[in-house]
């Protein structure tokens, strides 16, 4: 009865806020993402001690400190292996990973790809602002060729990484894009990402008022084109991201192509929403199928040192 009472406890947004003073720049898009994440956790009613937030390094890396959950602020580019280790230790934890675009698509590029392939049940939010802000605004892997933010001495001469395309080919089973300053929409996306069983990637257009003058709040709002907002929403279009039959290779291909087309088409506009979703066995499910004992209790609660190794010795005689 007591456990039930605990489960039924309602949590408010306030329950997910830590007391720590926030040191992001005034007006930073990160605030929008943090708020959306806190809202999503509250809406889902997840107990703070059952949630772990794992980050890399950079401005976004400080996110866990501002949340009253288990918080792991790890290494630059290593969010995904860290998240995987924590989740494997306790599969009942709701795991949210956060990191910047440089962290995820640049230094952590190898980890990003492998992190999708494993299909761990987790949600990965990338704060995508085109720059390495904490080191004062160098080009990140998402800045477009020929473009230059006010913090860059020269325009970029490299082809940018396309997050949706990279995520689709890396095996993420939920691929979405949000906008840091549309907190309501982003809250919904994060909620859907957390509810999705498998690896959910949410790439968030994040404004950096200090270093990125290319993609400012005004740019998204279309101030330069007579106030015609650049933001479009997939759920206001004829667009169904969900693969109905994961066994159907043709449908899978069709849904991926549709996502790519949508992500690439509108140069002057940004399209938000869920691009692709498919239900495939998660890493935890695949492991539990091999080893049913993993379902008995989280590994962190099992007394694994009581194993009988005598048969192993016998095998060697």
């Amino acid at each position, binding site marked *: 009865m007591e456990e039930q009472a605990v489960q039924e406890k309602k949590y408010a947004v306030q329950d997910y806020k830590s007391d*720590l003073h926030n040191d992001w720049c005034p007006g930073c898009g990160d605030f929008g993402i943090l708020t959306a994440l806190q809202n999503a956790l509250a809406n889902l009613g997840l107990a703070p001690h059952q949630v772990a937030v794992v980050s890399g390094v950079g401005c976004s890396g400080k996110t866990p400190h501002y949340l009253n959950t288990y918080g792991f602020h790890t*290494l630059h580019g290593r969010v*995904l292996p*860290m998240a995987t280790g924590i989740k494997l*230790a306790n599969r009942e934890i709701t795991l949210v990973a956060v990191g910047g675009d440089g962290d995820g698509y640049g230094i952590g590029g190898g980890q990003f790809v492998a992190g999708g392939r494993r299909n761990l049940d987790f949600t990965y939010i990338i704060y995508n602002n085109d720059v390495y802000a904490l080191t004062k605004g160098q080009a990140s892997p998402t800045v477009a060729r020929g473009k230059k933010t006010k913090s860059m001495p020269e325009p970029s001469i490299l082809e940018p990484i396309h997050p949706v395309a990279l995520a689709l080919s890396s095996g993420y089973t939920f691929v979405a894009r949000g906008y840091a300053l549309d907190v309501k929409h982003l809250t919904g996306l994060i909620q859907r990402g957390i509810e999705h069983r498998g690896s959910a990637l949410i790439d968030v257009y994040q404004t950096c008022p200090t270093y990125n003058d290319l993609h400012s709040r005004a740019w998204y709002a279309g101030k330069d084109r007579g106030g015609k907002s650049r933001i479009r929403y997939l759920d206001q279009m004829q667009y169904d991201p969900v693969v109905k039959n994961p066994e159907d290779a043709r449908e899978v291909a069709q849904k991926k192509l549709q996502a790519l087309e949508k992500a690439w088409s509108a140069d002057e506009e940004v399209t938000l929403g869920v691009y692709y979703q498919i239900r495939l066995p998660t890493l935890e499910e695949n492991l539990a199928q091999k*080893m049913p004992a993993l379902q008995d209790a989280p590994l962190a609660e099992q007394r694994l040192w009581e194993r009988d190794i005598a048969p192993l010795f016998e095998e060697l005689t």
Partner: protein
Amino acid sequence: MSVKNHKDFFSWVIGGPQGSGINLSAELFAKALSRAGLKVFANIEYHSNIKGKHSDYRLTIGQTQPRSHDDPIDFLVALDEETLCGDLYHQYPTHRGLSGWVVEGGGILYDSAIGNMEDRVEKRNIHLFPMPYLDVLEEALRELGKVNQAQAYKIMKNVVAFGASAGAVDFDFSFLEEVIRGGFPERKKHLADMNVVAARKGYEYARREFAKTLNRKFHPLPKEKRQRQMVISGTQAVAIAKLRAGCALQTYYPISPATDESAYLEKHQRSYPLVIVQTEDEVSAVDMASAAALGGVRASTSTSGPGFALMPEGIGFASITEAGGPVLCLYQRSGPSTGIPTRTEQADLRFALHAGQGDFPKLVLAAGDIQECFEMTFEAFNWADRYQMPVLLLFDKHLASQMVTLPPFPVHGLRVDRGRWFDPSRKNGPYLRYALTEDGISPRSRPGLAGGQFWATSDEHNETGHISEGVANRIAMMAKRMGKEPKALSEIAVKYQYELWGPESAEWTWVFWGSSKGVLQDAAGLVSKKVRLLQIKLLHPFPREAVRKILSRSKKTICFDQNYSSQLAGLVREKTGLSMDSHVVKYDGRPISRSEVLAAQAAAQRGTERIVVSEGRVRREEEGIREVRDLVRLRENSRRMQPTPVPIPPGYNQ
């Protein structure tokens, strides 16, 4: 140190191209000898190659336990010409073959199809046992009704040769049959039958043709005297210790010679269970294991030098977050860079000690033999939990792949200590994950525990786990973390710090670490001088007081390092201020042998300071160029030779 001379041991070697089955033959023979109550030490030398390059597997056999190998060979089984004469088909040959290592009175079994060896084997008084491998195999196939498939079953030449070598030393065939059959499940009984018949034909041929000429016989111990013993490798001992210690997650990226350990765990994971993740790289491997430790489970990763080179950032992270792990197994191989991937070396000591930016606590230990691999790995998880720091265990290729006969390890004395944990029922005020305590240990929590929420960060942090750049906090936190090292040093049992054998009155003290243990123990009984041995196991934090005390009461000292730059000798000098009289080094990628230890001791007695050993002797490095040229000349002056193609197994590519 019971071994008095080389004659107590018999050295049996099988050589041939990789893919020709020498591993199977040697390991079956080792197991058969073990079942007969004999003691075996086995070690393999192989190339970084899948099929075709030369490999040789050596069994050192005795009534008492051999702990090492030696260069001379009593019985050589050659599956190809290269094993006898070297790779003289190469423009730049790399070796002269093994026939020159066969001792007087020893024997060589080879395929008579290679041709006459009488004029090609330099030594006198060596028994040559030419055997028509294919004819004998055909005989076996005739019995099996497959005589017209001799070409398809050529791969089984190794089985015939293996049987013949057992026949040549008059070993009881029933033990061979038992282990061959044991290697096949019931549904593959026909394969077992084939192998038994092939081995028996070789065995009978040898008994008929040669048994009288080789004056060495392996008599099984009487049944009542036979101990139940395993034939176990270093990687297996480490893997089993991990299972016993309750390791929940093992991560790895494939790399020689570490992979065998993870492969063993993967093979057994379903029965335990244990989660194995083959990661995208070693960066991920160390991070995932560190995070799992932070997540509250026992976790480990295994790698070799090139993989370890990717790990320092993760080790520093595990240490500053006081993760409670991981246990990191570093199987050293010949460096630098890719180096010689399948050969041994002990050249990563300095790297392991200094891997990572900043000052942070960690434990670095090295195991000397397979028993220690098991015990030290088991305890490593206790230390990781108790001191909340990464534990680095150093092994090497020689230790990883050697196999020895050993009784099953005693497990009743093994105690699990998971260290200090947050107790929600005794909560008093907010929980502080990095609480500043008297002894530097803060009670741990893990995700999922109500009231135990905490933050962990790779940044310097305060007691809550939030970032702090404050001066007072920095001093307190550094002192807290670094103070765990002297605490560990004062608590870790002495037997895991160092070990000393022999009397203080000994004229010579041999100082060493890691896999040199067995060979030094065996060799110590063979020298005329009185010797004592000091093995250093705990390399960081260094047991400086104890080592200084021992060395300052030693007469003459020699330090044995299987690397170029005498890394242990340098460390001892740094920590104790004491220098060794002689430094023995070996960096040719092969493990140090008994002959090399004896040669080194003789050189030290002559007052040589830096002693390089290789190929059974003290080697003059300045002659290296000439020796390379000599090999090229040898090829030019020798009979033309072709590499032996590796037979393709039946059904291959079909």
